[in-house]
């Protein structure tokens, strides 16, 4: 009897080597989880700490996340201090050495990506909640999505060598889909190159740069600081002067002020989705851009109609 139990235990212990158990991937953002799903396919099981419809700056360090992290094989973070407000205590509590920075189970997705707005000179909090390592919303440039996918594929292959060929094939498929997507998005937004837009938070520099759009201003006077009346007046004047046609707002902000601004300037207020899962239609990384590009292109088409 004892022997049987012992054998069962051995079989159970050996099971992961046999490839039955998936690689458990925890990501800070749903975008990273989506890319990891595309690249990892059946071999991985992903969980995202932040949901796509929530402000990624203010995630609560819930103890249930500790459980997820304690069992994780790979942790993928956006980096650039995006997770500074909740991840460090979770990592400590996870008791999981594999996924701590410096180990193979920790991947900073920002590595190798095009990071914009790295502050030069002196950085102080007089600038608001500024990120000293650059704008952390870099996944909103599809080129960076490709860099992230490659890094994830490489890391998964390292953690799970038998799956390497599968990861390579999945990566190629993902890159193919992304390349097709970029053609669609370029076609849709190409006619509006150079158009000025206003966004709520400064979340979109990579997106705007990629599609040759320009941020004329932000509803937040400084990152993380809600708009005050004087700033709103200034912004309204600027938008009227430059004929800014749209305001892009993340779904988790209060829409009262942007609505007022839209009302006074005639600009259209668009809910722009910054992450996979932000709305149902943004079901994966490519669908996220499909959704946002369509919303923006439709609005700009109406606005520029003679």
């Amino acid at each position, binding site marked *: 009897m004892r022997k049987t139990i012992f054998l069962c235990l051995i079989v159970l212990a050996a099971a992961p080597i046999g490839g039955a158990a998936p690689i458990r991937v925890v990501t800070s953002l749903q975008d990273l989880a989506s890319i990891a799903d595309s690249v990892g396919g059946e071999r991985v099981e992903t969980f995202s700490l932040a949901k796509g419809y929530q402000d990624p700056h203010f995630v609560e360090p819930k103890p249930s996340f500790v459980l997820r992290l*304690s069992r994780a094989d790979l942790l993928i973070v956006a980096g650039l201090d995006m997770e500074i407000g909740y991840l460090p205590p979770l990592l400590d509590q996870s008791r999981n050495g594999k996924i701590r920075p410096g180990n193979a189970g920790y991947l900073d997705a920002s590595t190798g990506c095009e990071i914009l707005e*790295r502050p030069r000179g002196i950085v102080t909090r007089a600038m*608001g909640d500024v990120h000293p390592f650059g704008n952390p919303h870099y996944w909103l440039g599809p080129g960076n999505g490709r860099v992230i996918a490659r890094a994830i594929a490489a890391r998964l292959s390292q953690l799970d060598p038998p799956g390497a060929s599968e990861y390579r094939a999945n990566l190629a498929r993902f890159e193919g889909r992304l390349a097709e997507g970029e053609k669609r998005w370029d076609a849709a937004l190409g006619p509006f190159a150079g158009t000025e837009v206003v966004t709520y938070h400064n979340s979109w520099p990579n997106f705007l740069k990629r599609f040759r759009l320009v941020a004329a201003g932000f509803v937040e006077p400084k990152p993380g600081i809600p708009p005050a009346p004087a700033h709103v007046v200034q912004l309204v004047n600027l938008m009227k002067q430059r004929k800014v046609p749209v305001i892009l707002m993340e779904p988790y902000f209060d829409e009262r002020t942007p609505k007022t601004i839209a009302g006074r300037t005639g600009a259209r207020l668009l809910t722009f989705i910054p992450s996979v899962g932000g709305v149902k239609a943004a079901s994966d990384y490519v669908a996220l851009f499909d959704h946002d590009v369509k919303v923006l292109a439709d609005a700009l088409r109406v606005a520029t109609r003679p």
Partner: protein
Amino acid sequence: MRATRPFFLLLVFIGTAAVVNGQEPPAPTPTPSPGSEVSPTPEAPAETPPEPSPTELPAPVEAPAAAAVQNPTYFNPAIAVIGNFLGVSGKNPIEDRPSLEMRESEISFQAIVDPFARADFFVAVTNEEVELEEGFVTFTSLPADLLIKVGKFKAQIGKVNLMHLHMLPWADVPLPNENLIGGDEGWNDAGVSVARLFPLPGDTFSELVLQVFRGESEGLFEAPSRNDLAYLAHYRAYRDFGDDHNLELGSTWGRGSNGTTDDARTTLENLHLVYRWKPLTGRPYRQFILRSELTRSRREQPEGKQSARGFFVGADYRLSRRWWAGGRYEFADHADDDTARDRGEAVTLTFWPSEFSQLRAEGRRRKYAGGVTANELLVQLQFSIGAHGAHSF
């Protein structure tokens, strides 16, 4: 009790030894050695994936983020200072705080020690003294889901005792903590803490914490001899209910010598509950937190054993991005006289100009045993500079 003490110390010793001894990485991973961290591109994909796709590639021209911040202060700990200014008006002969005071400035130093541990120091500076509020090392990569803390730290009894001044949802400390768990400073002592996760079905978090202390904590425990240690056992379970709701329940038992006679002890029992609601969609910045603790203190003293009770319930609601409103009801007997009971009610209004400062007004009425009633207005301004580590939930 006598028999469990050596056993507990042995357990702690074995746990600590496991860290010191087992310095190889906890789980074998096919990684380059930690030495390679110094390289400016530690995260560069090991294998170059397939050929570039037809569309233009935004070449990673800039170096990775980490390289940009390499500077001589790289290994310095994160340092932060939190100022806590308190103004009080109204008459209170029992708790006679100054009208205006820089109540406490907390200086924190936090850093990773090595691949196996991190350290946290919190120094409290007041007009009268500089005190090591907490200073401990945490071994984070132990086997068997263990987490060991060694140093001086706040005992894990309930939730309020663990909170630093600037984390409290009020400008003061509730009566049960004032009267039964060591006053403003709380139960805070040098010792060792061992915590283990016991995951329950349905993604329920549960943790058992055992702590042993020197047995000296102002206003609570006093150790006449070296063998008069204080002990604590704490268990908590936490569960999410969908994205928006979660509940934590916990219980704590603690015991130590109180110094009134050579073998007089105080035993503490505490139950805590925290319910949180924070909708992730639909209603931005709405949030609700309900906190409650029930405490019993059984104190042996020459005049006889005192069994004192304390209770508080506090609710806080977030009105908008920057505003919170809250209320609290509380009562507690005196630890050394269970016939004397203090009661109180409070309402709070809190404003957050940014993430780094906070202004709070608290209207408070406390009816003390003996018939004194105090109506007071407390106004608190907190401000933080530097890099203060994130707090656990």
